[in-house]
């Protein structure tokens, strides 16, 4: 019996590299049986399709994604996101599947002495309490931003996820729309992420990733953004922007995308499009600053993409 097939009959929490799970178990936030999972040939590494598409096994480490030259050439936004997250030590161990399925980093959730919606409690103490690092797009009862950097990048690339039960899940299918405050994702109990498929890149597309943080490295993003664009004859022919750190799920910045579509790539267009980044925002009392940072990272990446 391979480890990946044990899950259907047993209840418990999967453990991949354990970089998220171990801390929760040590603090006592997470308890109960564990199911160690490990890679099979089709759930690890890069599997290139004939037409230049890519399937990444869910057990591939973030460091391997960050270091893959062919991936970096085809999907620079994925590579840069992987390079920018966490610390070298964490990236070395952490798996792509674990990154997508990791639990919230909300400091109330992570505190074993405090009840909250995600731990069977009846309300969200962050909403009325200290939510300095929480959402600026208030889309549901839980106000913790989704922690996965890779999920935002994969959203920008319109990736599809395959589990042991379902296939062709979008990031939206996998993580939900933010309205369910009790879960960090929409996986069924015991459902295992096996791989992530990326459609072939567009002709001439460029992509970048950026996070706003207070220190230089090794800090959870206040706001992060993965941006892709195809610019032809000086005009935006294609734009995809996906932001993390601002909502219970990664968000496409559709208003910015729509403003730029077909427009000449000038500093003025970019500056006015960046203003659209906050459309639909509903900041909390302490998170209004994230909207400034969001506009800043949008402008930063668009300027660099068109430079």
């Amino acid at each position, binding site marked *: 019996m391979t480890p990946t097939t044990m899950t259907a009959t047993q209840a418990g929490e999967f453990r991949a590299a354990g970089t998220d799970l171990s801390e929760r178990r040590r603090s006592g936030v997470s308890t109960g049986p564990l199911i160690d999972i490990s890679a099979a040939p089709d759930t690890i590494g890069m599997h290139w399709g004939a037409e230049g598409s890519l399937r990444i096994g869910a057990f591939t480490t973030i460091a391997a994604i960050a270091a893959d030259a062919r991936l970096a050439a085809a999907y620079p936004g994925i590579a840069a996101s992987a390079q920018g997250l966490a610390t070298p030590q964490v990236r070395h161990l952490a798996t792509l599947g674990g990154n997508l399925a990791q639990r919230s*980093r909300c*400091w*109330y959730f992570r*505190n074993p*002495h*405090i009840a909250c919606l995600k731990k069977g409690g009846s309300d969200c*103490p962050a909403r*009325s*309490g*200290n939510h*300095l690092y929480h959402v600026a797009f208030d889309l549901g009862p839980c106000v913790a931003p989704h922690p996965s950097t890779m999920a935002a990048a994969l959203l920008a690339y319109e990736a599809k996820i395959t589990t042991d039960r379902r296939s062709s899940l979008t990031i939206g299918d996998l993580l939900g729309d933010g309205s369910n405050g009790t879960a960090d994702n929409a996986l069924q109990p015991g459902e295992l992420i096996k791989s992530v498929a990326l459609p072939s890149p567009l002709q001439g597309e460029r992509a970048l990733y950026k996070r*706003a*943080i*207070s*220190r*230089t*490295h*090794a*800090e*959870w993003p*206040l706001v992060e953004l993965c941006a892709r664009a195809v610019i032809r004859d000086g005009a935006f022919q294609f734009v995809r922007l996906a932001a993390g750190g601002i909502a219970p799920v990664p968000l496409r910045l559709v208003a910015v995308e729509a403003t730029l579509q077909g427009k000449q790539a000038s500093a003025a267009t970019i500056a006015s499009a960046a203003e659209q980044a906050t459309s639909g925002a509903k900041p909390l*009392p*302490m*998170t*209004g*600053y*994230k909207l*400034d*940072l969001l*506009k*800043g*990272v949008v*402008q*930063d990446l668009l300027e660099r993409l068109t430079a």
Partner: protein
Amino acid sequence: MKIALLPSDQGELKALSLTAYADTGAATNSTIAALARLIYPAEGKELADFDVISNLPAGAPFRGPGGPPMAFALEQAIDEAALRMNVDPIALRKRWDPDPNRQRLYDWASSLDVWRNRKPIATQSGRYRRGVGVATGYWLYLWQPRSKVEVAVKGGRLVASTATQDIGTGTRTVIANTVAREFGLEPHEIDVRIGDSKLPEGPGSGGSRVTASVIPPMLLAIEKLKAAIQQNAKRQPAPGSNAPWREWLAASPDLSASGVRPEDSRQMAPGIESPLKQAGFMGWIFGWMMRRFSNLVIGAGMPSSVQVIEVEVDTWLGHVRVVNVHTGIAVGKIVAPALAHSQAAGAVIQGIGYALYEAREVDSRTGDVLSGGMEDYRIPGIADTPVIDVHFDQGGFDHVLGGSVGIGEVATVPTSPAVANAILNATGVRLTELPIRPDRLVAALKGRAAA
């Protein structure tokens, strides 16, 4: 904190008022405003400290308790005064702060290229703006009476013993270096025995008191031991020996000598005096009480520091990068240069953490600490560490036997106001809340109050 300065028509400092409310949690005795007593003399000073007591966990003071918050307020106020009076901020400090140790540091600071080449306030318009700020710090020179050091020859090796401890600050090295230097040996040839209360009474590790408490008695003990060795040695060193003490030691029976911390000399350099003197009779009483009940003496002369800091501000993302720091420190003779250098550099790094990152976040209703781990309690990392230029001004403490006082606390006091003054120079915006996080900076740049 609330602060006000009143310059006279002639540009002198006439009055200073500072009121501090400290979030002490379940504790009392914050000393913030009181520390403004001992710098920038003025005709009138109104200084008041209040403890705001709550059920929150006690806010334990860190390096230089009360010093960094006092400097964050006072040194920004001085900077603001210089700006409004249209005087160079270092020149104004030279005018208002007669302390001789700091006068020398001001001369050094104003000669730095980074200071001379700084741009006028808020003259840049791009996304990234650079600015340079200056700030001053001081700490008390404290020493502990009755501190005793024994220096002995045991089996031909030198052993120095005192009941103090090394909490990572370099006490062992200070002791080993001093003994080694006096005998012409290498520090690793000296056995240092500390961390045992059965040893001769030594100083506690607090208030930057250790160096100034152990070196003078150690020098006395060394003098006595040398005489005893020369008297009792079985043979004399070879004539013209280039390592006579090595030979004396090899020929010496086991011997020991000890010294007790002597009073400092009353012969002081011009302008150096006990900080308590300014406080008159009250100061005398305070000094007597400190010695009687805390076994501590506030000595003459002030350990001082002046920092010139250059920052780069990303005005879009509210990110501050400290580019380079020049830290000038006057704590007398440097006994352990490598360790003093890392104390000075470490103090800057810790000061940057205080300025930009560190904050204990609590839940306002329950008081639960939310930032209880290295992930949520941010301290600087390697990439946040600037180029640090350390300048030691080694004078000012010749009245202390050995000429050295402690460096630990004074080195970190001015960092946060120097960073804030540099941000003002770059952007025209003055940040009065710590830490200076992106949320506060972008709000200030937009003229909004931060949440």
